[in-house]
């Protein structure tokens, strides 16, 4: 691969607890993730995949190791710098959608842009675009209680997308969705990687997604067991 990695981790260690109850979640794990691809990270429960995602995105500080995002050493930065970095470059999607119950889909997408100090007119345009990109332009005025699970997740994707992030992290984005909605969501993530050149890292234990991935990293006991590039049409 000639493209430089946008995301790389070297010799990551992370453990929880102490003494006999100590659990090593990441053991000397090194990995490089590339832009323009949808990289899936799979593995059984407790294999450390969510911890890896949190560490790679600067949401969690590992016990040892280095994390480089877009060429910057993220761990040697202050909390405030890390916030600023994530605000400028990162998007997140979670299993639980995490939408504010009071806000309409449009407002959910608009909210991060407000904190990014994007001018109002531009922010509204970007929010409309993002919702249109996930196929929710006609549902923009609805609050989460009026949206289906798939629509909620697509709103969450639009919220991440409107920030125009170079790095997109998704933690079990399809786990609470049925097959059809799961497929829509993974297709969206794939398209974001391909069409926008974003680096998309998706943690999942959903085997249905394997067909859509450019690369699959299989994790077990805090180590990378397999790293493969499935060939599909």
């Amino acid at each position, binding site marked *: 691969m000639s493209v430089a990695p946008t995301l790389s981790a070297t010799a990551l260690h992370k453990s929880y607890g102490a003494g006999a109850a100590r659990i090593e979640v990441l053991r000397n794990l090194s990995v490089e993730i590339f832009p323009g691809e949808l990289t899936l990270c799979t593995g059984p429960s407790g294999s450390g995949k*969510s*911890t890896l995602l*949190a560490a790679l*995105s600067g*949401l*969690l*500080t590992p016990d040892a190791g280095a994390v480089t995002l877009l060429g910057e050493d993220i761990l040697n930065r202050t909390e*405030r710098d890390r*916030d*600023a*970095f*994530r*605000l*400028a470059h*990162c*998007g*997140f999607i*979670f299993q*639980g959608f*995490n*939408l*504010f*119950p*009071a*806000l309409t889909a449009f*407002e959910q997408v*608009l*909210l*991060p842009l*407000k*904190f990014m100090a994007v001018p*109002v007119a531009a*922010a509204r345009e970007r929010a409309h675009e993002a919702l249109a990109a996930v196929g929710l332009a006609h549902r923009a005025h609805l*609050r989460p209680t009026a949206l289906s699970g798939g629509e909620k997740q697509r709103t969450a994707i639009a*919220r*991440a997308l409107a*920030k125009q992030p170079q790095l997109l992290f998704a*933690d079990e984005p399809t786990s609470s969705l049925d097959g059809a909605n799961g497929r829509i969501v993974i297709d969206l993530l794939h398209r974001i990687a391909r069409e926008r050149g974003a680096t998309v890292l998706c943690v999942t234990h959903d085997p249905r997604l394997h067909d859509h991935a450019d690369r699959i990293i299989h994790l077990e006991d805090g180590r990378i067991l397999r790293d493969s590039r499935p060939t599909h049409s």
Partner: protein
Amino acid sequence: MISLARITLIREWRRFLPAILAVGFAGLLVLVQLALLLGIFRTIAVYIDTSRADLWVGYPDTRSVDLARPISTRNEVFLRAHPTVADVEAFDWSVGDVRRPDGSAALATVIGIDTRAGALALDRVVTPAQRRALDEPDTILVDMSSTANLAARLGTMLEVNGRRVKVVGLTRGLNAVGGANLTASLATARSLDTGAAPDQVGYFLVKLRDPNAAARVRDELAPRGVNRPYSVWTASEFSEMSQRYWLLESGLGLGFLFSGGIALCIGIVITSQTLKSVVQASLREYATLRALGISLRSLRLVVLEQSAWVGVIGVVLTVLITLGIVRLAAVFHILVTAPGWAYAGTAGFIFTIALASGVLALRALAQSEPATLLR
């Protein structure tokens, strides 16, 4: 641009209602307790505050107006001798054992006042006509707040210390803390006070030609030495002394302060817990915003704005209901006093509670890495 705080408050008002009510009622409890307490204290000093005297002269070192002990009438000459003194009049104070028309007993304070037109004593509660009516021997005025207690109306015959007196008028605003206030002429009061010596009186009220000279004249009139025959106070000083005595040295004042304090604590606990639960219900959403790179400071401002609105609405609720209660109390002749500073103080206080509760509620978010909240 959208305000997360306001939109949430408006669209999810049901979630904030308990917090708003908690803030509002905590304020209400404190404010009404305070108003009752101040009302009671005003009751203690009502004799001073409704009279027109500049100086009060009474038994040496009396600490509260209701603790009157007699002084000699001979002192009047010395008081009148001062060039700034315009007028001096006697004011009598005694305890009366009242027998109601139905024969049951009640306790009362019998106040003897000068009945001359333009007299100083109880100037603001006794009308000139009522004062004239008291010239007839064995007549009294009863305060409206005590008519039920004494089973008395205009024209009723009561028995005070074994002597029959007729109710010839009703005063308004002469509430008493215990028992009832009966107002009589000095002569009638004297005849009702079985233990009174003829040359003794409860207080002298002094009117000055220059009211601004009160403090100076007080010092000039004050006797020196060990066996002083009397003490002199300015009216405002004596009023404050009496109220302070009741606040700090009577069980009544301390009891009220205690219950007011408890009301405050309950308000703080309920408010902070409710606001905390509202914030915590959205903790995952806030954590998501943290993940997206929105600073803790920005989120704190959102929660602070929310808490501030809860505080403001709570304060409005408190003030409106308190105004209603104060009005209602007036109808039932209950003395409550809610001055502006009590409203402002309570409002400021509960607003602060609301803000502080909001800040505390965000601690869960500040103390943990966002990742742990997003599991």
